[in-house]
């Protein structure tokens, strides 16, 4: 899901003061409230049955040693202890954190650069073509992106073809199969998927900046760099927050791309928590450990996303 906590218009959350309730009034109001609840109920039931209950069960499983079939044995916090001490699992969590650089920082930084260059030329037919093409990676399944890039990065792929053509054949390798390059290679796929979204979001944000601010900056003698730091960047706080939120969640919860392009290999080089949860729960039958890792992943997402929300929400001039 591309969603995250956001900067929704909060609107009027306070119920307008009701007149002193007469008995008839109170009765009508209670009935209206009852009817109102009927509207909320279907969504709430689906959410409770297919999200809240499983969520509670994940927490419960995480406290047990269970193979999914036999009797579960109470394990207390043992699974969590394993998550935080097992070197493999720590490495896997570390991989996800490294992926944040590729999935999040690169698309946002590059997106800022591109967006500030193209600020005003995305109008007209050229603009439509650009927007449409930049959005393609957002629209196709991540699995397809994984397959396409596995082919580009393979030993016979385009990347190596280009390297050999420019005389860098010595560097050529199976990028996704090499211990040193596999994780960055997976990161590049993520960056490719998310760059377009970030760019378009940032361009949209920039188009809302008051041109007078730029005029003023120019009059003060600011060059393009100063202008970017003094005007563009501060005005885009909220958009940057959104980009970071969406992309960090994509990095931490990555699954599709990794599953298809490397299945976590070579070794554990590209294994991420999402993949490990899947493997532990469904091939290793270590449901308890998988669930503990899932809880840790959830907390990790919150720990990354909530501060960004706090920092970038509101206070927009």
């Amino acid at each position, binding site marked *: *899901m*591309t*969603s995250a*906590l956001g900067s929704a*218009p*909060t*609107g009027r*959350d306070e119920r307008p003061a009701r007149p002193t309730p007469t008995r008839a009034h109170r009765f009508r109001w209670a009935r*209206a*409230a009852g009817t*109102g609840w009927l*509207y*909320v109920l*279907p*969504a709430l039931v*689906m*959410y409770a049955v*297919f*999200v*809240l209950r*499983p*969520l509670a*069960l994940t927490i419960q*499983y995480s406290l047990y040693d269970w193979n999914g079939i036999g009797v579960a044995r109470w394990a207390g916090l043992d699974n969590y202890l394993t998550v935080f001490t097992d070197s493999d699992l720590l490495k896997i969590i570390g991989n996800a954190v490294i992926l944040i650089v590729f999935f999040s920082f690169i698309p946002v930084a590059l997106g800022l650069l591109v967006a500030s260059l*193209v*600020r005003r*030329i995305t109008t007209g037919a050229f603009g439509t073509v*650009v*927007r*449409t093409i*930049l*959005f*393609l990676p*957002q629209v196709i*399944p991540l*699995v*397809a992106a994984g*397959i396409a*890039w596995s*082919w580009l990065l393979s030993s*016979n792929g*385009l990347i190596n073809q*280009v390297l050999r053509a420019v005389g860098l054949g010595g560097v050529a390798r199976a990028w996704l199969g090499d211990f040193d390059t596999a994780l960055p290679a997976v990161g590049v796929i993520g960056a490719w998927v998310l760059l*377009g979204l970030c760019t378009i*979001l940032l361009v*949209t944000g920039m188009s809302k900046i008051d041109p007078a601010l730029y005029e003023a900056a120019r009059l003060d003698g600011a060059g393009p760099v100063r202008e970017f730091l003094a005007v563009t960047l501060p005005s885009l706080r909220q*958009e940057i927050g*959104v980009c970071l939120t969406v992309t960090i*969640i994509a990095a931490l*919860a990555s*699954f*599709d791309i990794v*599953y298809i392009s490397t299945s976590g290999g070579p070794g554990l080089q590209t294994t991420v928590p*999402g993949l490990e*949860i899947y493997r532990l729960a*469904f091939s290793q039958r270590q449901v308890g450990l*998988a*669930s503990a890792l*899932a809880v840790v*992943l959830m907390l990790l997402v919150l720990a990354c996303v909530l501060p960004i929300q706090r920092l970038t929400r509101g206070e927009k001039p």
Partner: protein
Amino acid sequence: MNLSRREQVTGRVFLIVLILVTLLPFVSMLSAALQPRGTVPTGLSWPSDPQWGNFADAFTAANMGALLRSSLLIVLGVVPVSVLIATMAGFGLGQLRVPGARLVFGLFLLGLTLPFEAVVTPLYYQMQDLGLLNTRWAIILPLIGLYMPFAVFWMRAHFTNVPVELSEAARVDGSSTWQLFWRVQVPLARPAIASLTILMFLWTWNQFLLAIVLVDDATKRTMAGALGAFQGQWGTDLVLLCAGSLLILTPTLIVFLIFQRQFIKALIQGSVKG
């Protein structure tokens, strides 16, 4: 403000490079897909004799007819229901402001950043207990639930901004809550509903994790899930794999190109709001 000529040119060059980088994977896939079967394609080399027939082979090998039908059934199972119940909930929370609305909304917010991996294991056992494993229901029902945090958030944001006076006026005219919802509010909410529908369609069509965990039979999965199985089966036949992957992503591509304006708008709004 006028941009200097140099800035215009740099900007355009950058954009063109970006477009090329975005398109390269697709072009490279296409060039591989058109090589003769059984050869080992290299990088980007346009075949002298393009084998368009590979697509026909891939169509049969991937069982495309069945896949399309399956994805459509899943989308039809998920999207209308999700959109309807999320709209109703958004109306209840944002417009009727039922008592406890804040609490319930907070509960929905809880799920907003939830990675699907966090609940997929219990969902498996839940589906097993319900006897729904390996049926499309195993994808449809959880997806509806998993979409609720975002969908309710989205619709509530719309309904909180509709003036309450509108509802009060309708009530004075003697309309029931249902009439108010259906005749007054839903037509007004059409743009929000349309964007939500587009997002739900896209996310459902591309859903991978639930499809591979909960359904073994590839012909009962979503398009993305089926692509995973296709890769497993034809991973060594690169020509066919590329042809098949291109075929499998064609439907979304077509839908996207037709509705691209709405898609981009929905995706931008979706991420800003979400």
